[in-house]
């Protein structure tokens, strides 16, 4: 027997809710874009190779201004000014600046300056360049003495790099959010006695479960496709091999489906789906590298992170986007995603059988 009428039934509810909640639905599509923008800009900052130099210049004489201008002229340095010693020191301590220069009340070229240094990787090389900028009594460092930066592969600005990472990252993140939030569909059916009532209709509960899962799959897939298309067009992000991206996205939506079914049997009340759902999604995302690349975290944590489906999806998307991988190269990731998705669905179905006392003979 086909489950077409079950699909049609949920289609009625889905369409009715879509009609009444257009704004909320739009938010579900637009919000990830906002996150991509914000996270992209944030991550882009980490890709910016210049060193930030904090400067406290309370006098502002021609000499200090000239020295600051010299530092600023170095393409590898950026100057951020501070108004007081405490703020500058705080900025050094918080890592906001590589070093903090304090010009004394009377300063002439060749005089010493006080420099606050943090313990970051940036301090020493930045100091080298700053010193070069301040040294008026000797020849400045020539360009030939300093290493030039040669970029291979695509030439991208740091913002593009940030967005390039944030786009797949937030696509994965929001697919997981969507899956967990849509567990509310099953929670509602379960807790308000719909499922028991459906047992008394010609429709089978497994069809209903299938439809609930498929609904989540559809929503997550539509959201992901929307994000991929919009980020391609608006941010010029090259997602890579089309077939590969499609297969990963299909599998990612499968994970959303699995989450919606599994957590639909666990959450108590739709409110839990709406509150704990996003929270859990963010934790899965952080583990799986949606807020920062897993390659920067210590190896044990990167391994642990792969308990989260986000890690596998990110591995696949980034391989396609950054390393010109083909769909064959990401088949293993896709396979793991599907194993996770189907395991979640199975666990959910078993849990549901347990809670509903569905000892009815198979129809």
């Amino acid at each position, binding site marked *: *027997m086909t489950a077409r*009428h*079950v699909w*049609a*039934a*949920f*289609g*009625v*509810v889905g369409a*009715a*809710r879509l009609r*009444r909640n257009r704004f909320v639905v739009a938010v579900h599509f637009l919000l990830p874009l906002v996150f991509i923008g914000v996270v992209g800009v944030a991550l882009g900052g980490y890709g910016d190779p210049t060193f930030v130099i904090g400067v406290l210049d309370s006098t502002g004489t021609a000499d200090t201004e000239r020295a600051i201008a010299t530092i600023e002229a170095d393409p590898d340095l950026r100057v951020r000014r501070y108004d007081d010693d405490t703020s500058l020191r705080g900025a050094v301590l918080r890592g906001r600046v590589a070093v903090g220069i304090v010009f004394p009340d009377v300063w002439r070229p060749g005089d010493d300056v006080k420099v606050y240094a943090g313990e970051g990787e940036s301090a020493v090389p930045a100091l080298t360049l700053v010193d070069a900028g301040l040294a008026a009594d000797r020849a400045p460092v020539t360009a030939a003495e300093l290493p030039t930066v040669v970029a291979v592969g695509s030439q991208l600005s740091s913002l593009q790099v940030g967005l390039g990472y944030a786009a797949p990252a937030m696509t994965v993140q929001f697919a997981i959010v969507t899956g967990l939030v849509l567990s509310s569909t099953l929670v509602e059916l379960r807790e*308000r*006695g*719909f499922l*028991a*009532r*459906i*047992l*008394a*209709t*010609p*429709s*089978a509960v497994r069809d209903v479960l299938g439809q609930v899962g498929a609904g989540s799959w559809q929503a997550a897939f539509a959201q992901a496709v929307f994000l991929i298309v919009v980020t391609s067009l608006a941010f010029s992000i090259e997602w890579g091999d089309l077939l590969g991206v499609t297969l990963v996205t299909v599998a990612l939506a499968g994970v959303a489906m699995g989450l919606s079914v599994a957590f639909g049997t666990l959450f108590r009340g739709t409110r839990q789906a709406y509150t704990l759902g996003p929270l859990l999604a963010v934790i899965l995302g952080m583990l799986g590298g949606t807020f920062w690349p897993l390659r920067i975290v210590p190896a044990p944590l990167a391994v642990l992170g792969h308990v989260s489906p986000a890690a596998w999806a990110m591995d696949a998307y980034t391989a396609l986007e950054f390393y010109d991988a083909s769909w064959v190269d990401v088949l293993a990731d896709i396979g793991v995603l599907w194993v996770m998705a189907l395991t979640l669905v199975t666990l959910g179905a078993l849990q549901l059988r347990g809670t509903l*006392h569905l*000892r*009815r*003979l198979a*129809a």
Partner: protein
Amino acid sequence: MGAVLEARGLVKAFGARRAVDEVDIAVEAGEVVGLLGPNGAGKTTTISMIAGVLRPDSGTVHVDGLDIRSGPAARARLGLVTQWLTLYHDISGRENLEFWGRMHDVPRKRLRAAVDRALADVGLHDRADDRVDTYSGGMQRRLNIAVALMHDPALLVLDEPCVGVDPQSRNAIFELVEARRDGGVAVLYTTHYMEEAERLCDRVGIIDAGRVIEEGAPAELIARLAGGTSLRIRVTDPAEHEKAVKVLAGIKGLRGVTTGDGAVCVRSKGSDPHIAAVVAELLDAGITPSSIDLDTPSLEDVFLELTGKALRD
């Protein structure tokens, strides 16, 4: 013609407790059968097994000759009205019915007409396109009943449909059930309100602690088990109580004379309360009755007689 519903030997235990114990129920077309019992007697468990929601430990359920567990065809002949509301509150009444119509596999071509008719049947036509959370409690109950009507079931099973319903909605529900019955539908109806059972049911089964302990037409059960009318007679001079008891004990057709609460109580053996004889004999004995209250027996009394408990404990 065979029964539309035939349930035999239904047993369901939860742990050591037998919630339903060897229950047989049969309902014919055009008949309303009530399952009357207090909360926790096993009514909902019985109905859940009949509707195929719960698998019995033993026993069989046939609807229109088909085993309810044999597949969709049997369940397509059944309309279940649950005690709880199976409605989406954030969409309209019509959309809810379209959802349930689809779940009952009503073909798309017939769906619109079926929804309209069900809405008209429960008197919600003018509010059909409003969101359900704007409905009153009674309206939501009526919509919950409409859920079970669109596929024209041969058997309608209603589980306490009038709990928490205002009198107006309650009447509408009664009329709806009667209309369906008159249309040849077999109706199984559970309630713990005896008035509902007396008004609607052609037959009632009295259920207590999981067993059907009596069965029959309401009037017949009352006549057989609850005895006749009880009379409560007050006399002007309480000192004459003893004398009155003797007089009343001598009247043929009365039984069980007692005193208490400043009155003399007696029951008629049959349905005739023998008021003329009571008044005449008392006056003859020089006793003047100041008031006589009549209390017609009900299924409540039947239940009390059978179990020693009130229905609404």
